[in-house]
């Protein structure tokens, strides 16, 4: 078709972004019709928070000091649920092969899947944050905290999507992802927990900025690695 080739020549990137957008749109449409994954992630997160509440006997003082860590543990556990499912579905239904046959750059596939996972995780976090702030009686809906949550989730979804596309092709499948993902996302988790904790404790900018920088550095490095290496994971 002459129509489709003309805009590609004038703006080579627009085709790439259209491919990414198509994948994200597909994932969102499928999810908002079934809501399977989102429901599971939200309920799972609430259960984790409840379990922590009883396991740690959270009184007022403890709540303030452990809330940041607790939130992040909840987010990353719920995140692994979503990451596993997002790629396992593609594999089980055979749609991954279809996506790989599509005439687009392989990294667009990673980008699209990661963006979809980022959106799902963010939706879950946006539901959990107000609920948790009521349950813990803490002001969790601060703009800075939401920035930290977003930065942490970007890195987690990026590395997570890369490693999940490996994990679904191993014998262990769902079991493999946390084992691969947790040790390499530890710096991300620590930076996110420290930044969130300092924001909640109103500790001032100089205690927050180093951790924010670390989050940014992590996001940039690992998204770059993911984009560079993804094509090797899916080439058959």
């Amino acid at each position: 078709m002459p129509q489709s080739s003309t805009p590609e020549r004038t703006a080579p990137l627009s085709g790439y972004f259209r491919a990414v957008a198509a994948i994200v749109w597909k994932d969102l449409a499928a999810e908002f019709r079934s809501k399977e994954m989102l429901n599971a992630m939200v309920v799972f997160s609430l259960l984790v928070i409840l379990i922590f509440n009883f396991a740690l006997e959270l009184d007022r003082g403890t709540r303030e000091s452990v809330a940041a860590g607790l939130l992040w543990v909840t987010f990353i556990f719920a995140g692994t649920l979503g990451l596993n499912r997002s790629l396992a579905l593609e594999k089980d239904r055979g749609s991954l092969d279809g996506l790989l046959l599509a005439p687009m750059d392989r990294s667009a596939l990673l980008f699209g899947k990661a963006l979809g996972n980022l959106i799902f995780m963010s939706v879950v976090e946006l539901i959990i944050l107000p609920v948790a702030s009521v349950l813990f009686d803490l002001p969790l809906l601060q703009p800075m905290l939401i920035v930290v949550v977003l930065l942490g989730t970007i890195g987690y979804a990026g590395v997570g999507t890369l490693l999940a596309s490996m994990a679904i092709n191993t014998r262990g499948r769902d079991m493999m992802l946390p084992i691969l993902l947790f040790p390499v996302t530890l710096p991300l988790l620590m930076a996110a927990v420290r930044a969130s904790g300092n924001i909640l404790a109103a500790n001032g900018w100089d205690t927050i900025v180093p951790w924010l920088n670390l989050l940014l550095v992590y996001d940039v490095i690992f998204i770059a690695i993911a984009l560079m290496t993804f094509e090797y994971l899916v080439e058959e």
Partner: protein
Amino acid sequence: MSQTSRRLMIFNVITGVLVAAALGLVFLYAPRERQMGEVQRIFYFHVPVAWVSFLAFFVTLCTSIAFLVKGEIKWDKVSAASVEVGLVFTIMAIISGSIWARPAWNTWWTWDPRLTTYTILALIYVAYLMLRQGVEDPGRRARFASVYGIVGFISVPLTFFSIRWWRTIHPVVIGAGTATSIGGFDMTPPMVVTLMFSLFAITVLYFCFLANRLQLQREMDHVEQLKAQAMAD
């Protein structure tokens, strides 16, 4: 005996002599440290072993990149061998460190940045081996392992810096020591000589293990080949 295995044998003997000589220096030549006494001698083993573990994982990083760029399976075999040998050295470093920490710090273990980073490093490469075991197709296994070898190694310095912002008690012996680190000491020239020789000997030991592991891999591949041949006949 083929020529490669004879060369390997000579290498093994040389390594054995070097390690024995290093042990001789550690116990007979290096002076007794004034404050910690004999237990300080484990330092000449602990530091080289820890250094070699990083070297081993760095080798894996390089061979992983080489595999992804060149696509030759031999690089992946070196990656796998180096991780296996590296993990052995990692365990040796953790055990020797604990034996030293008990009298020096009065505890087997602390959650200090280096110790914590090191544990995570070990877990990353345990995960690496589990990943390899979980993939049957050799080509896919090589690609997956190479990507994880790169991701894993690059996360280690970030882990280290993020934990370092808590206070550290691991002694910094080389370079500027801090007053707060318990168990630090100044090295006299014989101590430096002993340490340098041990570093050299243990590094040779790493290459010796690696060469033997690769030879083992070659023999395993050969057996597989013969089996496939026998099946075909």
